[in-house]
């Protein structure tokens, strides 16, 4: 428990919730990141610019924060091969399931959408199971 950071986690989470609320208030859009990323690649759709602006703002804010604010170092314990496999699965799975952590677990759950509650329960359980198998049964720490 030495890395337990409930206050910064709660503050960060509240900012995420505020951002999602404002996007709905201003533009009437759900702050689902996997959908936005997929939408950016949809070149035929001209309604797409707001997605680029949102994602650009997200990346920019994180970069500036990392430059100026003190923060714990980001660490990666997975190999390049596993990272690529994981990326493909996350990309495919979030399209097939119509959402990820932001769209389902934050926006959908807040609206009490049945689909999002089911999706969130499933992907959380599968992710927990995956970590259990990789870390404790297979002993893959890298």
């Amino acid at each position: 428990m030495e890395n337990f950071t409930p206050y910064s986690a709660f503050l960060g989470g509240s900012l995420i919730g505020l951002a999602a609320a404002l996007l709905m208030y201003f533009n009437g859009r759900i702050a689902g990141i996997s959908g936005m990323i997929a939408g950016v690649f949809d070149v035929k759709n001209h309604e797409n610019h707001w997605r680029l602006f949102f994602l650009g703002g997200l990346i920019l804010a994180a970069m500036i924060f990392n430059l100026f604010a003190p923060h714990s170092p980001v660490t990666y314990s997975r190999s390049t091969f596993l990272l690529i496999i994981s990326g493909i699965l996350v990309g495919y799975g979030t399209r097939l399931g119509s959402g990820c952590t932001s769209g389902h677990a934050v926006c959908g759950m807040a609206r009490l959408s049945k689909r999002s509650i089911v999706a969130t329960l499933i992907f959380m359980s599968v992710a927990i199971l995956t970590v259990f198998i990789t870390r404790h049964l297979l002993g893959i720490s890298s």
Partner: protein
Amino acid sequence: MTKNFAALFCGILFGLGLTISQMSNPDKVLSFLDISGNWDPSLAFVMAGALMTLGALQHFIFKREKPIYDSQFHLPNKNNGIDKRLILGAIIFGFGWGISGFCPGAVLAAFGDGRIEPFLFTLSLGAGMMLFRLLQKEK
């Protein structure tokens, strides 16, 4: 244009939230998912903060007939049924997320750290999405 600037502002808040909460740190996410190991429950507070804030605010937002800069709220019908696609998609996503600790928003926030891993993951993520689109077209 106002729509784009509103989106930019929201994106900035969202990125700050991901970074401050350390959702963008994959090892922190894996420690949250590792309930039988040296469990770090911090990220449950991210979800609590997000759901409480959004839940409270949307109570007022949805009293409006429409958003400020659009003619309607773009919402999926929340009474849509639970189908095989949703379940299978969530399983595949959960599997991928559990392998690396990266989800689509968090990985973009991790770009700020200046390492190669987030770019590599994002490219693979795009490949997975394109694979999905190709397979959909064949059907």
